[in-house]
């Protein structure tokens, strides 16, 4: 959540209006959505409960969860208006997220 807040906070009103941020996780709860709406951050939280989509993207960390379950690898992808990947970052260490500045630069370069 903190990284999403960081990202949203750095985009200007106009930029936020012009970009859709879609957050994919196996279990986003209504709490996340309400929090984002309360902060007027304009995120769509979508649920990939069985990790089918995450798997198709090759972003599953097998057995990486606290109970040994499969979890997503943290990743950020910037798509242009034609739906083409222009930049992406996949984390190699679950403590580390893509630098919000890098994401911002990628979005502004579209």
């Amino acid at each position: 959540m903190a990284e999403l807040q960081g990202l949203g906070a750095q985009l200007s009103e106009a930029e936020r209006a012009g970009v859709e941020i879609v957050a994919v996780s196996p279990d986003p709860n209504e709490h996340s959505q309400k929090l984002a709406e309360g902060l007027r951050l304009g995120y769509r939280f979508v649920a990939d409960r069985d990790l089918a989509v995450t798997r198709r993207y090759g972003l599953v960390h097998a057995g990486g969860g606290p109970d040994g379950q499969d979890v997503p690898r943290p990743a950020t992808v910037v798509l242009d208006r034609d739906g083409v990947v222009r930049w992406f970052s996949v984390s190699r260490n679950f403590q580390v997220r893509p630098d919000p500045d890098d994401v911002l630069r990628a979005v502004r370069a579209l």
Partner: protein
Amino acid sequence: MMTSGRLAVLSSGVAIGAIAAYALLIRVAIVRNHPEGYVIAAALGTALAALAVVRARVRRWPAWLALGLASLLLVGGAWFNFVLARIPDTPTTLRVGERPPDFTLPDAAGRPVSLAGYRGKKPVVLVFYRGYW
């Protein structure tokens, strides 16, 4: 010239302080994204403790204690950061210049969100995350 005792205290302060700072400031992106910082600080603490041991004259145990503590934090911190926290490289299907797989997934209200629906309308930032911290 710092005494052995003071070096021992300084060493422990640096090593423990670094790990405490990481834990407390973990929501700050620049801290979280550079976990090697606490490893470097623990290495510094270990070096200071080693210096304390060398300089110890009368009471040696504080220096040895500090060295033991700093080494433990260094090994533990390095193990966590470089081994436990590592995500094995898996081949992602993402390629710059290509379209990623399309999908339709439900949002928090149950409404379907389709990636292809944004084509021709808006750029999209897709964030895959674990759903819990």
